[in-house]
């Protein structure tokens, strides 16, 4: 791995504590709208994006906070975006599901992001050989037809994209068995895309698999897919959980934070905890004291030639 276990632990804890704060503050009406937290899936964003290079691109979805923080996005700007502050990542226009910053793009329309990711990979192939698009999608998103239109083009044109399917076993309230027929890896394979399917919450393992797949992609060997069986510990959005508590408890035994701890020195664990807690508190406090997004900043939907 590029980064030490402690680094990974910190990266995952930043996501965990951020999301916990979001869920803690939501009932207090500090936010407006909705949100989807990443709690339980931290090892995916951190393990995968550990292999991100400078000119790489990340395409994310409705559950984007973890991807964004792992990408290197500002915790404060994300908190501010959720609170509708002018200092938010998108000045408050996008909100929780629509985060855009540098080479990071998230959108709340499931599946619609996959052709975008494919088009971006096309652009990279033409302009920045060696660079890769990391495209995240959930298991439920495999229901959207445009995903397969995209897999076909990505494979046909040998585009530099790594598809990451985070299979947390549910689409909103619906268990995968009621949503998905056949086999996930086979759905990529059918389009000539090699897919590696792992059931893991170990950030190192996820990182190692990613390293291998991404190196293929960088070498111009075409798209690859990584399917990670995982689990979310919090509700789909907020307070809308209908899953069996025992099932949640069962998967919590494989909490990615627990899995990595053994590899981190006890001293470090406490330091990281203090550090991250402070960072999160600061981020939200600052965001809360930032000015609300101001209508006067609104620009037209079409540019000059409009």
């Amino acid at each position: 791995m590029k980064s030490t276990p402690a680094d990974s632990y910190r990266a995952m804890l930043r996501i965990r504590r951020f999301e916990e704060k979001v869920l803690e503050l939501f009932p207090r009406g500090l936010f407006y709208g909705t949100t989807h937290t990443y709690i339980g899936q931290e090892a995916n964003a951190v393990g995968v994006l550990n292999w991100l290079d400078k000119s790489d691109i990340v395409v994310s979805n409705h559950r984007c906070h973890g991807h964004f923080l792992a990408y290197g996005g500002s915790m404060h700007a994300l908190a501010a975006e959720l609170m509708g502050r002018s200092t938010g990542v998108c000045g408050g226009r996008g909100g929780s599901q629509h985060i855009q910053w540098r080479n990071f793009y998230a959108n709340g329309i499931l599946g619609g992001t996959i052709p975008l990711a494919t088009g971006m990979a096309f652009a990279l192939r033409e302009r920045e050989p060696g660079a890769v698009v990391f495209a995240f999608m959930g298991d439920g998103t495999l229901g959207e037809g445009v995903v397969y239109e995209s897999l076909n083009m990505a494979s046909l044109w040998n585009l530099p994209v790594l598809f990451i399917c985070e299979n947390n076993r549910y689409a909103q309230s619906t268990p995968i068995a009621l949503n998905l027929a056949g086999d996930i890896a086979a759905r990529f394979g059918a389009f000539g895309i090699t897919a590696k399917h792992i059931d893991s919450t170990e950030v190192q393992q996820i990182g190692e698999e990613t390293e291998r797949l991404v190196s293929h992609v960088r070498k111009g060997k075409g798209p690859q897919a990584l399917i990670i069986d995982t689990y979310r510990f919090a509700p789909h959005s907020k307070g809308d959980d209908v899953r069996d508590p025992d099932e949640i408890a069962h998967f919590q035994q494989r909490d990615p934070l627990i899995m990595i701890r053994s590899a981190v020195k006890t001293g470090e664990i406490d330091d990281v905890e203090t550090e991250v807690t402070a960072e999160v508190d600061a981020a939200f406090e600052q965001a809360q004291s930032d000015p609300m997004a101001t209508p006067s900043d609104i620009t037209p939907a079409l540019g000059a030639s409009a």
Partner: protein
Amino acid sequence: MTTFLDRINAGLRHCLEKSADVYLLGEDILDPYGGAFKVARGLSTDYPERVITTPVSEAGIVGLGVGMALRGLRPVVEIMFGDFLTLAADQLINHAAKFRWMSNDQVRVPLVVRTPMGGYRGYGPTHSQTLEKHFLGAAGLRVLALNTYVAPEQVLIQAILEDDDPVLLVEHKLLYPLSTFSPGREFEMHKVSGAYPWSIVGIAGAPRADLTLAAYGYMAEIGREVMHKLAYEKEIFAELVVPTQLSPFDLEPFYESVRKTGKILAIEEGSLNLGWSAELAARSLENIRSNVRFGRAAARNMPVPAAATLEQEVLPQVDEIVELALGMMER
């Protein structure tokens, strides 16, 4: 107290009860979840064979509904957010709406596609839109919008059990917690009956109205507030006309009001250009000889932002509509 949502739910239940041909399909509609907005709650428990949760495939499930309808069933498909109707546009416009006519009337497509629409909830640009305008005027497709002035269960029953043509039924998210309107002492209302009624609402005991407020769905709630303010704060008396059917355009009750008032202020939540009320303007010019004044309140012409302060700026608000109304009276 039974909410508007309870009554939609009751309407669906009634249809499932009345006809074994009725099926509900949609994402996450099974109990205990009962759908993202809980409209289907309890139904899968009582009708497990006919309430079916689907994959996240908006085009696919609407197409599935068209196929079921072509074979004599009466499917009701829920699209979780109206914003996702764009994914089903081909199935609605090129399949559901055409099949009957294209086949020389050999087949029917008794399909209902229900969807919660609208903003004011901070859900952001892809979960707050008012997109029905893009489906109005499609030949062969009926578009309805629920409002608190009609019994929602009746509209559902008519669309699901009686209507043999495809129906797109728009339900504004903010209607769900409300209850249906009753005039009480302050208002008066009369209905123009028909399969999908119009409601004409006025201020109780007010003099002859000299402004027609035209609004549907949740905007008809805003419209009533506007009407109330105009009456009690400005002594301007308006009449609110509320259609249940948006397309095709059967506007007689609207004309009737405009012939009296000569002034139209339409209220739409969608962005200004080419919304429902543009057709009202066109038909007023075509059908009402005398000179009419026309104004529109609508969302600013941009996506619906997530931040509260911005969303409030972009979506229509009562006070700015009142200002618009005053402006029209002065002209």
